[in-house]
């Protein structure tokens, strides 16, 4: 009886673990939001600059995307290259 009562009490009062978990999830998200727009913009500009040294690119065809997962995040870089690019590369090489 007294054990049950104690368990009931502790179940009602031990809310700190919930608080910690909620905060961890929230802050991981908010920190990502803060840095994200900036980071992706910088990455996009720099990738564009590097690739443009070798290939003429349409800046609008460079897409950088970040996907945040629970344990792993992925960075997706999608660059559309004009046709004939590989032939020119072969000629240069």
């Amino acid at each position, binding site marked *: 009886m007294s054990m049950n009562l104690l368990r009931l009490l*502790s179940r009602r009062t031990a809310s700190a673990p919930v*608080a*910690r978990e909620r*905060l961890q999830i*929230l802050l991981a998200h*908010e920190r990502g939001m803060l840095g994200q727009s900036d980071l992706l913009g910088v990455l996009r500009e720099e990738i564009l600059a590097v690739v443009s040294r070798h290939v003429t690119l349409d800046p609008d065809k460079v897409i950088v995307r970040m996907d945040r997962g629970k344990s792993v995040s992925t960075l997706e870089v999608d660059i559309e290259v004009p046709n004939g690019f590989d032939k020119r590369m072969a000629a240069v090489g």
Partner: protein
Amino acid sequence: MAKVLVVTSGKGGVGKTTSTAALGAALAQAGEKVVVVDFDVGLRNLDLVLGAERRVVFDLINVVQGVAKLQQALIRDKRLENLWLLPASQTRDKDALTDEGVGRVIAELREKFDWILCDSPAGIERGAWLAMRYADEAVIVTNPEVSSVRDSDRIIGMLDSKTVKAEKGEQVKKHVLITRYDSGRAARGEMLSIDDVLEILATPLLGIIPESQDVLRASNVGSPVTLNNASSAPARAYTDAARRLKGETVTMEVPVARKGFMERLLGRRAA
């Protein structure tokens, strides 16, 4: 060399002003020459907590705008000859503070003092930004409670990006000061633990200030708690924190709750 330290939090009511007064007094009691600067324009309270509210003539904005000289605005504490206050304006618009003007005043204070403690207003707006702008170090006052920890995280982000140090590629040295800590409630799992807070904020701990009547009692009478009741638990915690700021190594004491009557009666079962 003078150190500029901002006492900040994001969230209001967590104990920034109390902590500024207590840390400032503790540093002054240790022989350092200290000025505490109130950045909370329109809602100044540092003067009240220090018991200097009737001695304010000129304020920070007067000095920034050149209406008064720094010497005219500085108020020397009546109990501690090493402690000075630069009050905020109660009536002026907060937009009267400029980045450049604050920079000038801080530079002038650096020549006169060992420590310049800037008491930040709540929020993440211009006032909080100006308070941290020229800081070398920061004390982030945090209650073990979700909204306070979240706001502290935002402030840490600001300290890492919006300060002069950050813009120069350097780091503001950050410390977390946990206030209003109730060890009994933490032990019962009702309150975030010290480890929880530190793990989430990933910032070193400066001290743990227990929730205490002594803190309220001290501000009631307009005296920093380290002066008003030096042997009380919060005063000792602030004194230790001040020593850590000075670079001393002081063992961290986690405040232990004295057992109440009921708890003693029930023994360990209640814990």
